[in-house]
């Protein structure tokens, strides 16, 4: 009995080490060091993204401080329900991505794929609602440029609001589009069985990216849709 169990654990140990050897790239001492390097690399990238979006947020805050009334009037033209629904959609998609990473850690291949596909679907819903909003702004002549029309006290600076709105939500939507592509790719590789509990850094990193894009929207929603909405002085 004891011989049998020790034989079993010998095979299990061998299997684990062969999986680890396959997952471990030769330049790393062990899997933990490899994971730390991979996660660190992703965070370094995300901090450069923080810089990228941070600049735009700063421009927004400064212009809002300089032209509060123009920004307030312009923000009345946002579709409140669209922003709110999209916030809920993104938070749910983030939950699914977190569950996909969890499934990868535990080695449930089909669960990884299912959760990633759910997140991908919600990502597409988000982009659909965003496109619907953009179409509305286009029809209402709220796209900055020669066709821009605005009834208000300070149309020039209300146009600045819309410029910032389109640049910020546009770059966010671009990140969503890239995120949808990454999630699709990761779902494909997960389906093919590329990830094991020992090695799934790619799933982790795409998850980090997705949550980061979610965080950007968490700030865009109040700044563009909520602040002082309906409270025109």
């Amino acid at each position, binding site marked *: 009995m004891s011989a049998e169990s020790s034989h079993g654990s010998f095979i299990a140990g061998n299997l684990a080490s062969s999986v680890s050897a396959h997952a471990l790239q030769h330049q790393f001492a062990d*899997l*933990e060091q490899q*994971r*730390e390097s991979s*996660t*660190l690399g992703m*965070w*370094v990238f*995300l*901090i450069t993204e*923080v*810089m990228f979006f*941070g*600049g735009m*947020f*700063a421009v927004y*805050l*400064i212009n809002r*401080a*300089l032209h509060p009334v123009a920004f307030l009037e312009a923000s009345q033209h946002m579709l*409140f329900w669209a922003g*709110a629904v999209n*916030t*809920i959609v993104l*938070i*749910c998609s*983030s*939950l699914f*991505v*977190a*569950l996909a990473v*969890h499934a990868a*850690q*535990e080695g449930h291949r089909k669960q990884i794929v299912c959760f990633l596909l759910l997140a991908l679907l919600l990502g597409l819903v988000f982009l659909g609602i965003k496109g619907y909003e953009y179409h509305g702004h286009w029809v209402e002549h709220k796209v900055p440029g020669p066709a821009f029309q605005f009834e208000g006290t300070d149309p020039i600076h209300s146009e600045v609001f819309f410029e910032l709105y389109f640049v910020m939500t546009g770059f966010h939507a671009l990140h969503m589009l890239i995120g949808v592509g990454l999630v699709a790719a990761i779902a494909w590789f997960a389906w093919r069985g590329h990830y094991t509990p020992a090695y799934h850094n790619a799933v*982790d990193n795409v*998850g*980090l990216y997705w*949550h*980061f894009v*979610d*965080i950007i929207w*968490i*700030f865009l*929603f*109040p*700044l563009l849709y*909520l*602040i*002082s*909405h*309906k*409270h025109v002085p």
Partner: protein
Amino acid sequence: MAETIVRKRTYFVVWAILMVLTALTAAVSFVNLGQWNAPVALAIASGKAMLVALFFMHLRYEHSKIIWLWVLAGLFWLTILFFLSMTDFGTRQFLNVPGK
């Protein structure tokens, strides 16, 4: 120090709190708080972002000091960006400087 596996329950609880905070920030926006609408909305957004970063992005369970160093450096830089910029634009009307 292998990767910490977070319980699924934790994710669902964090998700529920995020939903409640979203409803809260949406509801508060209908109340006229004067100057305070913006700070309240941004405070709630910061809280939500922190929950996402700590739990969904696993920072709460991250042992690696160098990863924390990068994250904190990023936040520190953002603070410089926002606060030093606003000390300029926020104080221009204090003195009658031409061209403000």
